[in-house]
């Protein structure tokens, strides 16, 4: 964890962060024309914030101001009661589940004894029989190995093991039962002494006080109820989640031990041959870890419960925060009330991760699954939001811009796809709608606000694939000089090429050029004056191409 935090700070690209700060949308920054002015929006924002802050503070100190302010805060607290209740319910549910899961009578089926667990009896009997069949094969292998003088497998080494394992296989439930019972004794020692966590939920008694506080009239602005509410929401969900994770761990322990007991005959059987001995070791490690993970988890639960109880009794903090100073009083009050609980829950979180550090196979899966679940939830929300935005945005350009911006952000990344996809679909639909229409008509239909038809026409031509251009250009389009001005070299080539334009098209384009030599020259000069030398060169290059190309010759 510490390494992760360290890596985060080491890999932080400050320039990138700064660019985010200076402008939320990259395209907006470009509007300022220069990077030098990129900080202007930040300054404006800070200025507005400072002025409004000063105004609110001075206004808040007046009776009217504080009344309005407190009313707003009370309203916010009231709205937040719904998530607060949900957090409360979630925490209570998690505590209840943990209570059930850790109780001795949770599952009546035995961990290791097939006589007390039918599921185990069926599974274990099958694997035992399979192992017994395997002994015959092993005997053949030993025989062959001895004949071929393979030292590792010769009967002197393997046969005693085979006989020993053949006997032990029938007693695996007893052997494993000893280990599990030992771990269970330790586990139940801690769990038995663990104080019921339901008292943690009593923190919600604060809820009523918060409501009353927020409703009470005060001369000063009172942020405490809002802060307390927010803290309680976070506290409720976090602690609820950690209790739930512990519950899963205990449930998973049952399943894992059953599976390992069922597989035990095969695992013991694998011990005979050197080639398969690694499998036995792996199984053994897992069995030990899964047996004692319960004890480790119970130990941390036991410790945390005592710590939380001390917090509840107000014995954790050596001293309390000074609530005398008027400005900091609400914060100090809140710290006094809630910090001890946070320490207890923090301890529980640390304990959970330490328990997982036993590296029992599958135990880490709980946390991975939780992380995946959280990611999926965030992704789902982002996607839904994206779709919502998508429906709201009528302009494909807007959707595309927002999508491209979102693509660069971690959380919003998922929303980027539907937005860009929507923009593309809209573009395609528009293109299809426009197909077959003369370029001038398309230009009129797609003209952006404030854009001239001429510019729009050039945009239409520039946006066309050369083949599309050649197949869709009407002879009337080619009479328009703006089309020629916008034509790319590739479009000129394709129009003259084998699968390009018709005789009529080529003839028309050539005639247009000959008729409008003065205008072409004028455009060339205009471009040169504007410093658009590349475009000016392209104009003459296209003309030169037409002149030198045999296909344009009638």
């Amino acid at each position, binding site marked *: 964890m510490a390494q992760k935090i360290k890596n985060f700070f080491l890999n932080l690209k400050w320039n990138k962060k700064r660019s985010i700060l200076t402008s939320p949308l990259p395209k907006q920054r470009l509007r300022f024309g220069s990077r030098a002015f990129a900080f202007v929006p930040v300054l404006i924002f800070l200025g507005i914030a400072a002025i409004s802050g000063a105004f609110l503070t001075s206004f808040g100190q007046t009776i009217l101001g504080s009344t309005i302010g407190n009313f707003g805060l009370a309203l916010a607290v009231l709205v937040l009661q719904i998530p607060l209740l949900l957090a409360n319910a979630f925490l209570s549910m998690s505590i209840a589940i943990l209570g059930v899961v850790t109780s001795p009578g949770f599952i009546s089926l035995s961990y290791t004894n097939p006589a007390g667990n039918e599921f185990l009896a069926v599974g274990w009997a099958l694997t035992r029989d399979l192992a017994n069949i395997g002994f015959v094969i092993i005997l053949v292998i030993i025989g062959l190995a001895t004949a071929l003088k393979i030292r590792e497998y010769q009967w002197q080494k393997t046969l005693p093991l085979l006989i020993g394992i053949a006997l032990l296989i029938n007693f695996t439930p007893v052997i494993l039962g000893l280990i599990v019972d030992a771990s269970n004794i330790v586990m139940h020692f801690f769990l038995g002494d663990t104080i019921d966590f339901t008292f943690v939920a009593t923190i919600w008694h604060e809820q009523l006080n918060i409501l009353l506080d927020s409703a009470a009239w005060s001369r000063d602005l009172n942020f405490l109820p809002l802060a307390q509410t927010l803290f309680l929401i976070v506290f409720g969900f976090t602690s609820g989640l950690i209790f739930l994770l512990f519950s899963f761990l205990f449930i998973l322990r049952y399943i894992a031990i059953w599976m390992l007991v069922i597989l035990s005959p095969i695992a013991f059987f694998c011990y005979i041959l050197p080639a398969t001995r690694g499998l036995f070791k792996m199984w053994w490690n897992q069995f030990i870890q899964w047996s004692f993970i319960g004890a480790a988890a119970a130990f941390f639960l036991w410790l945390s419960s005592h710590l939380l109880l001390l917090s509840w009794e107000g014995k954790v903090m050596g001293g309390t925060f000074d609530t005398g100073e008027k400005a900091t009083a609400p914060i100090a009050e809140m710290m006094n009330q809630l910090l001890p609980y946070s320490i207890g829950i923090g301890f529980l979180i640390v304990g959970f991760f330490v328990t997982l550090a036993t590296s029992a196979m599958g135990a880490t899966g709980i946390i991975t699954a939780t992380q995946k679940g959280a990611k999926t939830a965030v992704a789902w929300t982002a996607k839904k939001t994206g779709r919502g935005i998508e429906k709201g945005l009528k302009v494909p350009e807007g959707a595309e811009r927002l999508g491209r911006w979102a693509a660069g952000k971690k959380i919003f990344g998922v929303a980027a796809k539907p937005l860009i996809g929507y923009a593309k679909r809209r573009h395609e639909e528009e293109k299809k709608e426009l197909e077959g229409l003369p370029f001038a008509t398309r230009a009129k239909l797609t003209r952006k606000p404030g854009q001239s038809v001429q510019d729009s026409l050039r945009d239409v031509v520039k946006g066309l694939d050369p083949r599309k251009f050649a197949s869709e250009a009407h002879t009337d389009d080619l009479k328009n000089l703006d089309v020629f001005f916008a034509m790319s070299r590739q479009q000129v*080539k394709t129009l*003259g*090429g*084998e699968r*390009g334009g*018709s*005789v009529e098209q*080529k003839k028309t384009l*050539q*005639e247009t*050029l*000959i*008729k409008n*030599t*003065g205008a*072409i*020259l004028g455009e*060339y000069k205009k471009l040169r004056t504007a410093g658009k030398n590349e475009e000016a060169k392209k104009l*003459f290059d296209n*003309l*030169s*191409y037409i*002149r*030198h*190309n*045999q*296909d*344009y*010759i*009638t």
Partner: protein
Amino acid sequence: MVNSKSNKNYGVISQPETTDVIGELAIKYGLENENTEKELLEKMAQIENFEKREKIFENSPGRQIARTIKEVAQGKIKDKDIFIVTLRERLNISKETAQKLAKDLEEKVLNSVQKTFKEKEEFPSSQKIEEVIPLEKPTPPKKKDVYREPIE
């Protein structure tokens, strides 16, 4: 005309690169320069009559080279000497220059253009080239079986 698509196309024989080569050769032999387009446009802009303008456009050296190439490819000009003479007359250049230009054009443009042109004549684009599928699968020659005694 050239092929079945002639009602749509002029009978396409050019390759984009050959067009560029024509422009380069026109400059190389001093027939055109980087300002040719500008000069040509200025010249044409001074004239109101479309036909006269078109004549100037058509008579430009690069255009004349392209036209001559097209005629060679179409078989209208068959003899090399005629090709040189045509170039000389159309471009108003000396015999030596015409010969050199003809050689360059032959090497860099004509081969490619004629090849494409012949392909077009032999396989008009509307006609599909059918793959020749052998009727019988050829059987490999029998190897001598060294493990068996020959049957008398």
